[in-house]
């Protein structure tokens, strides 16, 4: 048992580090992690930086280590991808805009798209020239995404699409999207879906950013008003959209589900805060309740970190990661809410202050507390993740689905 690279891994790490050293600047000690996409004031600059970096690393094959060489990758192993990511994290680079496209949309296209489509879209996406988004969730179809209503009706060689999507990350800067639609409302919900890819710049597509409680606006509402899509942009058979979507979602879990470290305050930050905060009976670090919270948070964080190491070990041995890989976000997101809620309480009445100049530690606790509800929902709510663990890891039965054998148009709905 050790934390070392195998000789092959070490060689790959040296290579990656050498390339990064020649092409990027090391990240300053203690500097913040790269900004995730979605803060509009600085977004345009960040996008320009991200594109420049993406083009550079695509040229070297590092944009997607695991992709086959014919698609611009290195034909590498999952552990090599992890090693590259670990090394790149030590450098001052900008990412975040291409994760959904390269992590979910393009892999779906690779599975179901025609050779001409791959020729046309894969390389440009890899180089960051074109950005993709994923159009699944709707106002009445979140966790139960198969309940979506956006309608596609065949008209000659085209499909005509009307409806609305929501929570679409990055739609406002995306060029293309993969779109899940209902093509047959007369069959049960999972059976009447069909997947397409679409041009987001089509005038029949309207994108409206949604302001989140954090103040950011990375998500969007997307409206389709008689959008015409040629049948050649269909992915998978008519009525097979759910199967295609599962391919995409499987990749989403790989991309989002890792979430071991996660952003924001953790036990170290709470320790630092407690050392500088006076409570009614002395310094917070002397307080037993505070000390207990530091310990509890540490144990959860370490548990996640070493669970990730177990997953990496499986990858390193060329095995499938064990089911423990599924606990990441279910632990990290509530933990963030818990520790930041505690940290703001510790600041007493001043805990409400969000101004990074005024609040301790650049308002890390306040920001984390506002960000955490989103993390508990995005990419599978806590509740859905528990269902997934119960059903896929523990083998417990699925829920009884009252809409399973009912034509979608007759299934019960709320307001």
């Amino acid at each position, binding site marked *: 048992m050790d934390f*070392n*690279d195998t000789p092959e891994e070490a060689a790959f790490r040296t290579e990656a580090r050498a390339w990064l050293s020649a092409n990027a600047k090391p990240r300053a000690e203690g500097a913040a992690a790269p900004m995730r996409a979605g803060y509009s004031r600085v977004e345009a600059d960040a996008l320009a930086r991200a594109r420049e970096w993406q083009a550079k690393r695509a040229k070297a094959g590092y944009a997607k280590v695991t992709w086959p060489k014919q698609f611009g990758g290195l034909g590498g192993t999952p552990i090599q991808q992890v090693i590259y990511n670990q090394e790149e994290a030590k450098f001052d680079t900008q990412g975040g805009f291409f994760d959904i496209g390269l992590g979910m949309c393009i892999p779906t296209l690779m599975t179901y798209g025609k050779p001409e489509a791959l020729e046309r879209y894969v390389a440009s996406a890899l180089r960051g020239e074109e950005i993709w988004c994923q159009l699944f969730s709707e106002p009445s179809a979140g966790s139960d995404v198969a309940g979506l209503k956006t309608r596609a009706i065949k008209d000659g060689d085209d499909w005509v699409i009307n409806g609305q999507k929501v929570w679409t990350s990055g739609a406002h800067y995306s060029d293309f999207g993969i779109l899940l639609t209902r093509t047959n409302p007369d069959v049960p919900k999972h059976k009447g879906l069909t997947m397409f890819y679409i041009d987001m710049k089509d005038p029949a597509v309207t994108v409206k950013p949604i302001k989140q409680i954090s103040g950011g606006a990375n998500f969007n509402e997307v409206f389709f008003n008689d959008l015409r899509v040629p049948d050649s942009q269909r992915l998978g058979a008519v009525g097979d959209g759910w199967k295609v979507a599962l391919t995409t979602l499987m990749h989403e879990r790989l991309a989002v589900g890792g979430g071991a470290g996660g952003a924001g305050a953790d036990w170290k930050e709470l320790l630092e805060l407690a050392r500088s905060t006076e409570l009614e009976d002395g310094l917070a670090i002397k307080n037993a309740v505070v000390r207990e919270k530091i310990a*509890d948070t540490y144990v959860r964080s370490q548990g996640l970190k070493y669970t990730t190491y177990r997953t990496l070990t499986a990858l390193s041995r060329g095995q499938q990661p064990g089911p423990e890989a599924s606990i990441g976000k279910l632990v990290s997101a509530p933990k963030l809410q818990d520790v930041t809620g505690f940290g703001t309480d510790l600041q007493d009445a001043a805990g409400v202050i969000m101004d990074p100049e005024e609040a301790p530690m650049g308002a890390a606790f306040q920001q984390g507390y506002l960000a955490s509800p989103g993390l508990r929902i995005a990419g599978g709510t806590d509740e859905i993740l528990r269902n997934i663990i119960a*059903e896929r890891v*523990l083998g417990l039965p699925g829920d009884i689905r009252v809409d399973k054998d009912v034509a979608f148009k007759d299934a019960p709905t709320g307001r």
Partner: protein
Amino acid sequence: MNFDFSDDQKELREQAKRFLKDKCPPKTVRAILDGGDSYDRALWKSVAEMGWTATAIPEEYGGLGLGYLELCVIAEELGNAVAPIPFASSVYLATEAILVAGSEEQKQKYLPKLASGELIGTFATSEGANAATPKTIKTTFKGGKLDGKKEPVADGANADIAIVLVRTGDSGERSLSLAIVDLKASGVTVENLRTFDPTRNQAAVTFAGAPAEALGATGEGWDLTRQILDRAAILLAFEQVGGSDACLAMAKDYALNRYAFGRQIASYQAIKHKLADMYVNTEIARSNAYYAAWALATGAAELPEAAAGARIAATQAYDYASRENLQTHGGMGYTWELDCQLYYRRAKNDGLALGAQRVWKEKLVTQLERKNAA
């Protein structure tokens, strides 16, 4: 990255699992619970014959010299089977105490017999319902004689020897020392205690001028105790993880076979989410335990915080799993007849042995403060 047990170690775990399935089914645990012997002597004998008691003892002292990772996988299975034997007291505590603090002569004298299981040892710190600290220890060790009362002493009625935390100075961390005492000698009285988990013997041990010898230097007792407890906490954490796994398996099996309101109770989210949380807590505990196992096996400087992390996470996981396993069984879970109680009792026993969670959280944060200078 090689953060997992080796194939050989995994095979050892499977062997241990098969062995205990045969030799330690719930009915052997219940025999002790129902007021039989103070431990399962036949099981102890066969465990010793398997060499488990000798696992981490170097060959020069009659051990197998395998290592701590091997001992960890065995511990996991012993916990899974709620084995009613003095393994933790003798192997994780007494053996480790002598390995950590013993003179060459003491190692020669005790380790071969501890390795063969012929001698059973234990570690006696507590003196009643207080945390054992340099303030609360009153037992004295003067002129080779012990005086005082230790309670509870795990396996006090089963052990032949005890390592005892004693007062040798006035106050402060340097006021304590360790002594080895023969529990069968004159001046030692052992009385069984009625406890929460009768499958693990606990006794009150009174010393009235009992002959004893020092273990380690005078004044080192508190520091040595911390080292010994850290090592034992890692091994016991594996037992606790094994116990948590057993609770989850039991709850799952029951939920799949119990029907209410026309369907399996395992199909209700209230049950599914409870079991999912058991799984998550157990994996968090397992990962912390793996890290601690690495620290123990390599003698890493991170051992104290790794041990505390493993101890806390394992105690939390086992507490939750044992409570919610019983709850999942409903009224049947509360009966003497079902085995839920075995885990409910053992989880509490293990969570208190070596010190409660609160104590370990304090140790952990003290360590984190030290490692993360302000």
